[in-house]
C-alpha cells in the first residue's frame, strides 16, 4: 500500500467519524437520545416489508439518474438538469400512454405500454437535455446555469400540463393527471409494497455502463476531460462530447420520469421529480462515478431518507430533514476524499467554458484537419 492510498483511507475514516459526530450533535441539539434516534433510523428502514420496499422506491430512480450522469461528469459537463429532464420525461411518457390508449382502446398489451412509455420518457428527457448541450457547444453557455434555469421551465410546464391538457377531470386537492390504464402500470416486485420491477432497469443500466466503460467513446471522454486539445485530434470534439454525454443523461432521467409515473404513483403528479435529479448528482459523486459505489450510495441515501422518518417518529423531536444535512456533510467529505484520488471527478472547466483556442473560429474543423494530417507527436501521445 502506497502513501497516497493510506492517506485516502485515513481521510475516509476521518470523514465517517466526522459525519457520525455531526449526526449525533444534530440529534442532541434536538434534545433527543442519539441511541433512540439510531434505533428509530434502523427500524425505519427494516421494520416491515413495506419500509424495505420504500428503500428500493427511493434508491432506484436516484441510481439510474446517477449512472447515466457519469459520462457527462467524466467529461466535465456539470449538468444539474436531471430534475427538469425527469419532469419532461414524465410528461412525455404520460402523454404517450394516454395517446396509445386513445388509439388502441383498452386492448393494448402491457409490454407495449411499457415500451411506449419508456421510449417517450427517454425521448422527452433527451430532447430537453439537448437544448443546454447545444447552447454549450455552440456558444459556450455555462451548462450548470442553463440546466438549472431550464429546471424552472420544466416545472412551469408540469404545472400548466396538470392544469390543462393532462388534467384529471375529477375534482382533486392537488393537480394531477388521470390514473394510467392498469396495463401500463409496472408490476410490483414485493407484494404489499410500492417497490416495482423498475429495479431491473438498474441492472440494465449497470451492464450498459460497464460496456460503455470499455468502449472507445469512454476513452475519448476521459481524454477530453484531461487534455481537450488531444481529444479533439482523436475525434472527440467539444460539440460531440457535450451532446452525446448530455443525451445519455437526459434519456436516463427521462426513463426515470416514466418509471415514477408508471411504477410508483400510477399517475402524473406535481411532485414527480421529488429531488431525484439533485440526489442523483450527489450520489454519482458519492459513488466515485462507478456502478458499485453508485448503487451503494443510492441505497444509503434512500436509507437515510426513509430511516430519518423512523427517527422522527421514534424520538418525536428530531425533524426528518436531518437526512438532508447528513447528505450535505457526506458530499463535502467525498469532495475531500476525492482530492486524494486524482481523476475521480473531471476538472469541470474542461467543458464549462470554451477553451482559449476553441470557439467561433471553427476549432472543430481545424482539429479534424489536424487529425487527418496525422502528426506523429500526437499519435505517440495517444498511445501513452
Amino acid at each position, binding site marked *: 500500500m502506497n502513501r497516497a492510498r493510506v492517506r485516502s483511507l485515513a481521510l475516509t475514516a476521518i470523514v465517517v467519524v466526522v459525519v457520525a459526530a455531526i449526526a449525533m450533535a*444534530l440529534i442532541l*441539539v*434536538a434534545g433527543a437520545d442519539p441511541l433512540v434516534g439510531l434505533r428509530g433510523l434502523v427500524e425505519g428502514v427494516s421494520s416491515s416489508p413495506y419500509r424495505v420496499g420504500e428503500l428500493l422506491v427511493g434508491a432506484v430512480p436516484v441510481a439510474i439518474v446517477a449512472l447515466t450522469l457519469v459520462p457527462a461528469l467524466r467529461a466535465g459537463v*456539470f449538468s*444539474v438538469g436531471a430534475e427538469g429532464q425527469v419532469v419532461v420525461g414524465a410528461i412525455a411518457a404520460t402523454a404517450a400512454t394516454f395517446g396509445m390508449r386513445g388509439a388502441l382502446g383498452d386492448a393494448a398489451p402491457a409490454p407495449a405500454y411499457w415500451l411506449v412509455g419508456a421510449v417517450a420518457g427517454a425521448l422527452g428527457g433527451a430532447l430537453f437535455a439537448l437544448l443546454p448541450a447545444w*447552447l454549450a457547444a455552440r*456558444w*459556450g*453557455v*455555462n451548462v*450548470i*446555469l*442553463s440546466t*438549472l*434555469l*431550464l429546471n*424552472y*421551465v420544466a*416545472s*412551469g*410546464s408540469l*404545472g*400548466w400540463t396538470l*392544469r*390543462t391538457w393532462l388534467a384529471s377531470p375529477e375534482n382533486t386537492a392537488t393537480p394531477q393527471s388521470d390514473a394510467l390504464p392498469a396495463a401500463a402500470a409496472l408490476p410490483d416486485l414485493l407484494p404489499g409494497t410500492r417497490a416495482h420491477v423498475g429495479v431491473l432497469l438498474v441492472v440494465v443500466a449497470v451492464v450498459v455502463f460497464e460496456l460503455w466503460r470499455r468502449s472507445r467513446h469512454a476513452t475519448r471522454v476521459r481524454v477530453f476531460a484531461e487534455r481537450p486539445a488531444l481529444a479533439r485530434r482523436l475525434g472527440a470534439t467539444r460539440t460531440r462530447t457535450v451532446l452525446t454525454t448530455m443525451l445519455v443523461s437526459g434519456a436516463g432521467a427521462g426513463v426515470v420520469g416514466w418509471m415514477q409515473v408508471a411504477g410508483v404513483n400510477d399517475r402524473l403528479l406535481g411532485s414527480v421529480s421529488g429531488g431525484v435529479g*439533485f440526489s442523483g*448528482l*450527489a450520489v454519482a*459523486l458519492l459513488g466515485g462515478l462507478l456502478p458499485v459505489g453508485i448503487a451503494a450510495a443510492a441505497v444509503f441515501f434512500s436509507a437515510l431518507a426513509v430511516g430519518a422518518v423512523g427517527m422522527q417518529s421514534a424520538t418525536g*423531536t428530531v*425533524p426528518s*430533514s*436531518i*437526512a*438532508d*444535512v*447528513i*447528505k*450535505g*456533510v457526506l*458530499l*463535502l467529505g*467525498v*469532495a*475531500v476524499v*476525492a*482530492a486524494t484520488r486524482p481523476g475521480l*471527478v473531471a476538472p*469541470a472547466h474542461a467543458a464549462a467554458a*470554451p477553451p482559449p483556442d476553441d*470557439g*467561433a*473560429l471553427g476549432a472543430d474543423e481545424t482539429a479534424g484537419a489536424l487529425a487527418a494530417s496525422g502528426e506523429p507527436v500526437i499519435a505517440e501521445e495517444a498511445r501513452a
Partner: protein
Amino acid sequence: MSGELWISILVGALALAAPLVIAGIGEGFVERAGRLNLGIEGMMILGAFAGVYAASIAGPWAGLAAGAVVGVVLGAGVNALVYALRANEIVVGVAVTMLGLGLSTYLFQLWVPAGTTNVSVDTLGRVDLGPLSDLPVAGPVLFAQSPVVYAAAVLLVLMWALARLTRFGLQVRAVGSDPISAALRGVRPRAVGERALLLGGTLAGLAGATIAVGSIGAFTPGMTAGRGYIVLAIVIMGRMTPIGIALGALLFGFLQSFSLLAQSTAIQLPSEVYATLPYLVTLIVLVLTSRAALRRHAARLRTA
C-alpha cells in the same frame, strides 16, 4: 395596465433586485479572482435563517449582521476545504448548497415545530426621504424604499471603488487573469483567492438575511428559491463588473416583480408563464451574453 400597477412593479423590482446586487457584487470579486462559489444558494438560505433568528432576539439590524457572519464562516470553511484539503471547488459548492438547504430546514423545524405558527420578526420598514418621496413615479420607486435597497446601492459604489481604486482590487484582477505572472510579481494567489471568497461569502450571507429580514420578516424552508444560482447567471451576464451585475439584477428583479403583480391584470396568460418568465428571460440573456463573449474572443484571436 394602470400606471399605479407599473409603479408597484417598479417598487417591487428594486426590492427584489437588492439581495441579488449584494450577493452578485461579492461573487463578481470571487470570479474576478479566478474562483467560483457554487454554494451561494446554501450560504444565502443559512444567512436568511440566521437573520430571522437573530432578528427575533435583537432586531432586524442584528439579523443582517448575523447573516453576514454566517456567510463569512461558510466562506472560511470552503477556503479550508479547497486550499488546505484540495477538494474540488464545484463539488464543495454543490455540497454547501445541499448542506445549507438541509441545515436551515432542520434548525427551523427545531425552532418552529410543525403545527405551530411561524415566527415573524420586524422588518426594516421603509425609509421616507422627505419631499423627494412625493415626486410622481420617482418618489415611490426611488425615494421611499426599504433601507436594504439603499444599502445595496451604497455597497455597489463601495465595491466598485474597492475593485478599481485599491491594491486589493488590482491584485484580484491580476490573480484572476494570470495567477502565475501575478505570483512572480509577489502577489500570493491563494491569499487573494481566500480574501475574495470571504468577501463573496459575507455578501451572500448578508443577501440571504436581506431577503428574510428586509421585507418578509419570516423564514420558510427553501425561501431563496434558486436566487443563489440566479446570482451566478447575472455575474456572467454582467461580465463581472459592478454596473453589469446591477443591471442584470434589476432585470431579474423587474421580471419577478412583473410576474408577481401582472397575473392580476387583464393580460390573459397561464400563471405558469409568468412564474417561469424570469428564468426564461435570464436564460435568453445568458445565451446572448455568452454568444457576445465568444464573438469578442474570436475577434481578438483574429487580430492577434
